[in-house]
């Protein structure tokens, strides 16, 4: 896990991301960000189900949440569990700059969907390097 400028570690937590293309984008953005060193992944359901180790991990870290839809499951649950959300990303906000793009489906991203996922990942990694 990567310590940031505060000496804390960064954890990237996407929403569960199942059933909607925006959720899949959130998930893929998290994978891409983590692969590029933007933080470590944490499974949101693990947190929601009350796993003590997961809860402890976010309390000692700064979290970057990525939500696909306006339900905001990731940011709400991280905050409800006592985590600090250093950055909250909403895919639907990012998509305002990609109106009309063919994103793909809930099971498979099209090229434009991948592009949005990578854009979000870059944003996360930029944020992460600024904090360091």
């Amino acid at each position: 896990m990567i310590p940031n400028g505060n000496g804390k570690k960064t954890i990237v937590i996407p929403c569960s991301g199942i059933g909607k293309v925006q959720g899949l984008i959130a998930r893929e953005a998290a994978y891409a960000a983590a692969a590029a060193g933007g933080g470590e992944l944490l499974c949101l359901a693990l947190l929601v189900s009350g796993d003590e180790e997961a809860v402890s991990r976010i309390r000692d870290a700064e979290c970057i949440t990525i939500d696909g839809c306006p339900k905001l499951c990731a940011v709400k649950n991280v905050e409800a569990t006592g985590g600090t959300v250093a950055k909250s990303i909403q895919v639907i906000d990012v998509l305002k700059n990609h109106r009309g793009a063919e994103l793909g489906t809930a099971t498979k991203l099209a090229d434009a969907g991948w592009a949005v996922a990578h854009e979000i990942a870059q944003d996360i990694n930029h944020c992460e390097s600024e904090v360091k």
Partner: protein
Amino acid sequence: MKRAVMPCNGLDKAYGVLARELALRLMETEGMHLICPVLLNNSPVRYDKDLADASLLVVDGCPTRCASKLAQKLGIAVAGKMLVSEQAKTAGVDVGESLRPGPVGMQLVDAMQAELAAQAQAGVDGQPAVDFDPPTRFLTVTYDKFVFKIPAEGYLFNENDCWVRVVGNRARVGVSDFAQQSMTDITYFEPTRIGAVVEQFDEVGSLESGKSMMDVLSPVSGRVTAVNTELVDSPELINEDPYGRGWIAEMELRDFESDKALLLDAASYSRTIEGKAAQAQH
């Protein structure tokens, strides 16, 4: 009946990713309603329509069983469960650690989907099929400070401390009061696979406590039609009510008349316990 599937989040472990793959496959090819476990937790009303009168399958990736825990927490009835790590173990395959499913992982998804289809075709829905009244009269064996209870009628036992209760061509199996007291607090229950065809004395689940482990050896042969999924999250029910809520599996009998020859009635099992208790003391 409508069918719905809820996988675990499946983000950062290969087994979880396969749980998600299976759920998506079932949605796309079989029209099952897809339930997001986190959204369900945040906003249960969102899935009222999908879950009303639906048969819910829960697919967990790893033994942490997040999806099962959330279903239990919300009091949602679960018709069937599948645990990918257990399926991989049974199939003898190593899916690796990649979060992008490879050919081995996708073959496992194929196999799990085929198994679910076979269960559906065989009419095995994983639901208990028979009402079993709890026993009302017991024989007791007292040894030192311990008192072991044995239902006086309606139950048969094998020498491995497992019981069977038969109604028609169905049977329910579990472990005896002697077994649960010998193990002390049971902390882990691993169910067998629904649809499994077992011989008499084959394993139909396993238990662990801080003190010991126990394979639950079936007193009868047949096909497993249901398992007590409540025990996965509450294995202590076996300690609290071994002949009732702590039941292990339900089975469709194959050859009960032959199986009976190797089983003990309450009086014979009482004598067996007396012998075991005395042996344990020395």
